[in-house]
């Protein structure tokens, strides 16, 4: 706690301290948002030497079209820009040969006239299938109807933007539509707002936040984001379901919702990387026992709040620090009494930014994460509790060579002498080298090797020591129409000096295109020794062929073979699964309505320890479909 507080203070001082300025100050002229091809005029405080500057519009270089005058740069944007915000940046070369990036300003493009665009991809097909031979399991219905549609709509008018997308699903057979109905709404998102000022979103989406307290919270619900230019900030409020769902019976999810507020404050709104402070609070209520996890007891209610700081220093370093606290109430359920659980989590990451326009590409990052055993966040369902982790990673590349080094220390976060604690150190090195062999058959070649070493100790009543070593090498070759790879990996795990398991994996794959015939081939073999518990061998072969003589006639063949042999301590296992799929189709009518005749076959042979299954399906299908794509 003390360390984090000191670090926070230092970071704040860094942010408010005046950043070293380049000698050149540049500013952008004001622009009318209704002009889709504005003329950019950048005023300079000092002259620029030829060849020592570049003018960038987002990721595009405008320098070849830019006119340089005395104290200014002038360029007409050559293409009509779409609605949105655009950043203008100046890159300056210094005496050391390093290019520095400097923000000049930003402008928005709105539209003077209203425009509406839509895209609809839909397909509805009715098919009848004649079955020959023994069907597998469920017999297909005599008449099957299925369909799907994806709709996207957007309306722009003088800076206002309304849009959305949704998918619809249909199938006459029960069970293939996620909600169990025949026809239903899939997942959707609608949004409405004034360009970069505010936006209201309804449907399946994430709020714009990522960290310890909020992460991967993609749920149906409602959110409103409002920018407050006078305060250099943005406020987002959200109300989303706890569970992901599909269907229009629960368009905003089922029971149980999470509500919250996120407030972002920027040092420079046009340059968010300079500094950002985010405060977040969320509260969740749930009256169901559903959970995304396997062994998570779901709290009756929970709350989390956090403070996150992001910033940069001298364009060399980027940092992110976050402190979060949670509180969760678990109701009595007949097996345990009600209780309140409080926890805390913190995260700190510092990473360097790559030097622009340098032949060496180098980045490094260090991170620290500490999560209490009792930490529960309603908006981060996947955070791992009871863990303390520190990691250092660096990446270096030049030419075709790249090297990644990672060192991680991880331990349980419960610090008690009477409780077993796991400690782990993990070191990893990834090396890759890419080159063009110049040989026709090999083309672009990529070699990679990964080495990983982990040491683990457990204290407590039954102390143990474990060690894992793994090595993997891979060779890949890629041409435009042919690519193949070969990979070997070896994993060796020991505990208390004795071998626990050893696994050798080999993989060979290739894909090529010959005329209109596209193929993919994969062979995987895994052998695992489990001393004292036997041996496990796994084989997998797969072949995919697909060809199309023209857009009307298509053919495919899939062969898949899995075999698992296991010599266990008490019994042996020999599982096999062979499957094949073949199809030939011909489209007789194209356009909005089409008629297609297809012959498909499926074969499955499955043999397992506790049963076997075998069957063959031959399906002659006549399909009448209505298509639309725009």
């Amino acid at each position, binding site marked *: 706690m003390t360390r984090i507080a000191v670090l926070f203070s230092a970071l704040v001082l860094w942010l408010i301290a005046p950043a070293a300025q380049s000698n050149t100050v540049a500013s952008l002229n004001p622009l009318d948002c209704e002009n889709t091809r504005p003329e950019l005029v950048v005023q300079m405080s000092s002259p620029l030497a030829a060849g020592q500057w570049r003018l960038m519009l987002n990721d595009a270089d405008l320098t070849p079209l830019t006119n340089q005058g005395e104290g200014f740069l002038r360029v007409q944007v050559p293409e009509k820009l779409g609605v949105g915000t655009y950043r203008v940046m100046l890159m300056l070369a210094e005496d050391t040969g390093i290019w520095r990036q400097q923000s000049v300003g930003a402008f928005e493009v709105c539209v003077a006239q209203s425009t509406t665009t839509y895209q609809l991809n839909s397909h509805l097909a009715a098919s009848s299938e004649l079955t020959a031979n023994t069907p597998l399991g469920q017999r297909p219905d005599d008449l099957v109807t299925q369909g799907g549609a994806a709709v996207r709509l957007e309306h722009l008018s003088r800076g206002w933007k309304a849009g959305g997308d949704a998918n619809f699903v249909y199938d006459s057979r029960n069970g293939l539509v996620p909600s169990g109905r025949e026809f239903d709404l899939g997942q959707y998102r609608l949004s409405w707002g004034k360009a970069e000022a505010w936006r209201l979103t309804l449907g399946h989406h994430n709020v714009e936040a990522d960290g310890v307290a909020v992460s991967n919270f993609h749920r149906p619900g409602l959110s409103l984001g409002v920018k407050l230019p006078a305060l250099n900030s943005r406020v987002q409020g959200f109300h989303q379901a706890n569970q992901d769902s599909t269907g229009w019976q629960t368009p905003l999810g089922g029971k149980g919702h999470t509500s919250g507020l996120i407030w972002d404050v920027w040092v420079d709104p046009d340059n968010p990387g300079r500094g950002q402070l985010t405060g977040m609070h969320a509260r969740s209520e749930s009256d169901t026992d559903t959970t995304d996890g396997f062994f998570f007891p779901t709290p009756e209610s929970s709350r989390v709040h956090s403070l996150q700081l992001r910033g940069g220093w001298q364009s060399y370093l980027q940092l992110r620090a976050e402190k979060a606290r949670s509180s969760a109430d678990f109701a009595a359920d007949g097996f345990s009494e009600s209780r309140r659980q409080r926890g805390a989590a913190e995260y700190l990451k510092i990473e360097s930014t790559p030097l622009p326009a340098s032949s060496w590409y180098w980045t490094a990052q260090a991170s620290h994460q500490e999560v209490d055993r009792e930490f529960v966040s309603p908006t981060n369902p996947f955070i791992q509790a009871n863990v303390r982790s520190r990691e250092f990673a660096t990446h270096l590349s030049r030419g075709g060579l790249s090297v990644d080094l990672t060192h991680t220390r*991880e331990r349980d976060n419960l610090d008690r002498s009477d409780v077993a604690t796991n400690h782990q150190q993990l070191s990893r090195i990834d090396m890759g080298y890419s080159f063009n062999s110049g040989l026709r058959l090999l083309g672009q070649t990529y070699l990679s090797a990964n080495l990983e070493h982990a040491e683990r100790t457990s204290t407590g009543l039954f102390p143990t020591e474990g060690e894992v070593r793994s090595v993997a090498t891979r060779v*890949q070759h890629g041409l435009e129409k042919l690519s193949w790879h070969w990979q070997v990996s070896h994993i060796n795990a020991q505990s208390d000096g004795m071998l626990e398991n050893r696994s050798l994996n080999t993989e060979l794959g290739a894909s090529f295109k010959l005329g209109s015939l596209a193929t993919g081939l994969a062979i995987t073999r895994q052998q695992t020794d489990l001393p004292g518990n036997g041996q496990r061998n796994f084989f997998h072969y797969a072949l995919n062929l697909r060809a199309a003589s023209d*857009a009307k006639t298509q053919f495919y063949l899939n062969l898949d073979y899995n075999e698992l042999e296991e010599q266990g301590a008490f019994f042996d296992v020999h599982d096999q699964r062979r499957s094949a799929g073949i199809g030939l189709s011909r489209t007789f009518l194209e356009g909005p309505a089409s008629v297609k005749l297809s012959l498909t076959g499926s074969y499955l042979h499955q043999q397992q320890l506790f049963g076997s299954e075998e069957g063959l399906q031959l399906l002659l299908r006549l399909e009448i479909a209505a298509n639309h794509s725009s």
Partner: protein
Amino acid sequence: MRLRKQLFQSCLSLALLCSVTAAAWGEILSLSGTANTSMLEPGQSQSVVITWTGSATGGEEGGSPLLFDAGEWLDSTGALLEVSRTRLSPTELEIPLTGGNTFEFTLRDPQVLSPELLNRALAVGNTIVFRRVFTQDGDRRSGEVVFQIGAPPAMRDTASLVPVALDVRFDSQRTVEVVPNHAALGAYARFHYRGVGLTTLTWELADPSSTSATPLFRTLDVERRYLQRQAAGALIESPLLPAYSAGWHLLRFSVSTDDGAVYSRVIRYYVVDPVAPKSPEGPLAEVQLVPDKPGQLTWATLPDVASYKLEIHTPMHDLSDNRFLKERVLLGLDDQRLKLLAAVYLPANTTTLNWTDIVISDPAQADARWRVLAFDAGGDLIGISKLQPLNLKN
């Protein structure tokens, strides 16, 4: 003399009164519990039998039952984990009127522990305690039996992983998708766990033809990985998913551990019927690399052009990515999973450029694609070329 005698009689009366009072209420004199085992195995359901033995006295006013409260499972800190619903045998014990004599009793208390209960106890310590409170005529006495739990899965290298959560989604973060033919569709799985272990990660697909009757899953990708970093969990990306057959596709991701446990999720996507692909040919189709200068890009001129824009993209699954594509759709269409790496606007009289003259935000990329767009004086797009491969390392 007389006063001493009165005082003695008062004390004797008081003592008799106390003894009578004491003799009127029952009490538990002793209580102890033993179990048929003192060691429990984590990760599996098991049963134990606790035997309570003790002695009690009944009150003079009549027999009273020995009552038992619900049993409780506690962790090593004394926190309540679970209330046991198992009943004792016999369910009630009548202590006969003994007038102060001692009655011995023996009770059988069978209990069943679930793996979840043991895991929760292990999260705190290596012991779990069973406690039951007995009541006799207002006298309460609790008995406790302590069990040791064997080394938890997290302490053994060969022990199976304890899964915490598994989430599978498409790249759009949705769990159901409708995509047009030949769309570039991918998925990912997030797997969080406790412990360590060797796992097999499998992506499987049921094609529309197999979903017409019984879904037949074929293997798209299999990987053997030793999972041990708990803080970050595991992020597993799928290969590029087939989208060339119209209809329902079922995508299944499975995590298999060496002890035979399998955890899986299924998500669905629907492919819209194939529409004749648009011809890639068009203005500026002649973009090419200069044969003897692999880094030099060149393209044809166009009438009425005012400026060009040269774009460099990198495919999301390039050759340096370990998630190699095992089933690529190469029927005349480019990999649509592209990320813009760099772009430069050029005047109309430029038709050749070295890619090294372009500012690239991430020079670590090797495999790339490039194309050229042409704009007229009004800023309208009048030509676009086909995407061509480009090796950034040469």
